[in-house]
């Protein structure tokens, strides 16, 4: 597979047109058609329609709507920055931001080192490597909704709950799991890590096989221990992929929805309400029509924040990752 070889990056500049292809300016429609202008356009029709209606138009709409009051009953009216002010003044806004950050931090604490350690260990497995990978990846194949609903039952806080029964076998009393303001978020992250770690492990495993064996050979000539090899060769060689998975994980967790929505609906007492859940509530919670202005305003703020974060992140890590 050619695509495997070159690690395409979507931020490459568009390539110059092939030399054999000449730029031509149609003199009139007939020439345009004869030169293939029409058939070119025909091939673009699916993309233009689909992207136009379901991507570009909604993106433009989200900018427009964030400055409007829309309820689908009366005509939208321009309200300036009211939506943004409303969102910023909503006491739930700060709660949602704090919770989202907390989720992201916990997800990094649980979900970042565990797959790395597992992948490094697994890369050294000599026999039945496939079994390790398969077991690690199994949770990823379970549909996310099923995973959450299953864990929701595991988290039953009564003494006969699944996890509490297991804890009881080792003499630990029942835990409240998602029924407690403090334990709910870590419980959500624990499930999310379970569901996602396998994918990250496989990515790291693939990256680990790309580390040139010569580097280890050279280090051994200098008498390096295993720890030194990991620290001075393996990790630096994984730098690129580690940096990417880090920012992707942050961007992903900033948009976390499924877990808080299905586990707790934001509870107990808003301790797991996240930014995306708040957007959902603005737009879809009320049976009499949503506050679409506030919802789009908050979406835009989140998107801009993530864009700025990514730019800053890549600036800061540029020298390090290309080192």
């Amino acid at each position: 597979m050619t695509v495997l070889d070159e690690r395409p990056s979507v931020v490459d500049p568009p390539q110059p047109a092939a030399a054999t292809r000449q730029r031509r300016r149609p003199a009139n429609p007939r020439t345009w058609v004869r030169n293939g202008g029409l058939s070119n356009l025909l091939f673009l029709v699916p993309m233009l329609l689909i992207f136009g209606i379901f991507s570009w138009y909604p993106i433009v709409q989200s900018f427009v709507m964030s400055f409007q009051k829309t309820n689908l009953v009366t005509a939208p009216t321009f309200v300036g920055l009211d939506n943004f002010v409303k969102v910023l003044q909503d006491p739930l806004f700060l709660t949602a931001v704090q919770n989202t950050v907390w989720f992201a931090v916990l997800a990094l604490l649980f979900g970042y080192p565990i797959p790395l350690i597992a992948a490094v260990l697994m890369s050294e497995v000599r026999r039945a490597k496939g079994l390790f990978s398969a077991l690690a990846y199994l949770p990823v194949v379970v549909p996310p909704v099923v995973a959450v609903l299953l864990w929701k039952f595991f988290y039953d806080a009564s003494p006969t709950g699944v996890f509490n029964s297991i804890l009881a076998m080792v003499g630990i009393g029942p835990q409240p799991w998602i029924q407690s303001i403090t334990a709910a978020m870590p419980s959500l992250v624990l499930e999310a890590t379970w569901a996602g770690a396998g994918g990250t492990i496989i990515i790291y495993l693939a990256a680990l096989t790309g580390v040139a064996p010569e580097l280890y050979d050279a280090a051994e000539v200098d008498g390096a221990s295993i720890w030194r090899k990991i620290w001075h060769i393996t990790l630096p060689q994984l730098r690129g992929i580690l940096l990417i998975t880090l920012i992707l994980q942050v961007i992903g967790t900033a948009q976390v929805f499924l877990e808080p929505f299905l586990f707790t609906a934001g509870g107990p007492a808003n301790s797991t309400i996240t930014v995306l859940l708040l957007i959902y509530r603005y737009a879809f919670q009320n049976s009499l029509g949503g506050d679409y202005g506030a919802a789009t305003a908050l979406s835009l703020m989140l998107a801009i924040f993530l864009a700025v974060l990514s730019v800053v992140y890549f600036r800061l890590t540029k020298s390090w990752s290309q080192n």
Partner: protein
Amino acid sequence: MKSPAKIVTLVAVTLAGVGLLSGCSANAADSDGTTTIKVVSLIPGTEQAAFDAFDAQVAQFEKANPDINVEGVEYEWSAPTFAAQLAGGTLPDVFRIPLTDAKTLIANGQLADMTAQVEALPYFDTFNPSVLSNAQDADGNIFGVPREAYGMGLQYNRALFVEAGLDPDAPPTTWDEVREYAKIIADKTGQAGYMQMTQSNTGGWQLTAATVARGGSMEEVASDGTVTVTADNSATKEALEYLKELRWTDNSMGSNFLYDWGTINQAFAAGQIGMYTGGSDLFTSLTRESNMDAADYGLTAIPLTDAKDAGVLGGGTLNVVNVKADDTVKDAAMKWIAFYDLNKLVDKDAALQDAKTLADTDQAVGTPALPVFDQATLDQSREWVKEYINVPQEQIAFFAEGNVGRTIVGEPSAHTQELYGALDTAVQSVLTDKNADIDALLDTVNKTIQPLVDAD
């Protein structure tokens, strides 16, 4: 497909299909002169027997009205779904809404005006005015047909009562007794003695019921119509203090505190909850969907304090018609509504036929309800179908007996859903945070909802 031209055709057909598929909407008069109406049938996931009963009723109706063709659509009211269907125009011709939503939908012009059809009903005069008024605009035009009305009751699991050594035929009548019983159930059975809904706005709904039962009110409406949010009234504080005591002093509320309407019913049916407050119409759902043994079900009146205004929180649903319906559809819709929901209350033959159909398919007959018409009509209809009643009346009689002479109080009217949502947080805080500051929580609710009310 072998040729390039065909793939272009495929794309074109695919895109054209969008138009075709969604362009075809039902209803309106069909070519053969019959009118097809889409009506809500049952909650998705309901057991087959209930669908069989529904189909049987549709067949009876179509036989009596050969020019009308009825198509059942599975339907479960939920806030996001309803909003989407309303905005997308995909609601069936006949659907149901909670009483609290009616005023806004009427004001927004989203419901069909059914004044002519409803007033033409022979038993129009006997509608319970306090229920019907929910479906009317300021000029008295009617936009909905009352379908059912319920009052909040105390549901209890008779099996758990027995297991805890309590007499299931002597349910508690005061909040102190509820607390006492809850403690006994929790200690003896290890299950939650008492619980309440907490999620997806139901926490606020049930807290409002508890408030009303203690004589309080979440919103005060002045004579000029201005609404003041009064979530910090003393009755609500009392209700939350009560929960706090049960939860933290008695530890009689179990260990799971995130319940909405569906999940608390499930837990109750599975024997994990001794008592909770809920609508008097729950029997059907509990036995049909949650598979509860009817013999374990008990219902009694919600306890009221001695406070002057203490009452029972009520609610109900309206049958309404899609605003897009023309007169033919509206007439057909009215006939269906009358057939399916009303005639059985006012007409002996209809009542018998309905009860027989339900009983034959093993569905509930004789569930407790509040009168959509007057009390005499309700009693009379019960009398007609006596032989078919299969809901154990002696297990639910406490509800009717306890409610004699009580006032039914309507739900708060302004920004109800937002209010309930904000109150959810207060309820959840009290149940999950030992040091929750009730005054501060309720103050936050006031501060969140009042601006919304003022902005109208």
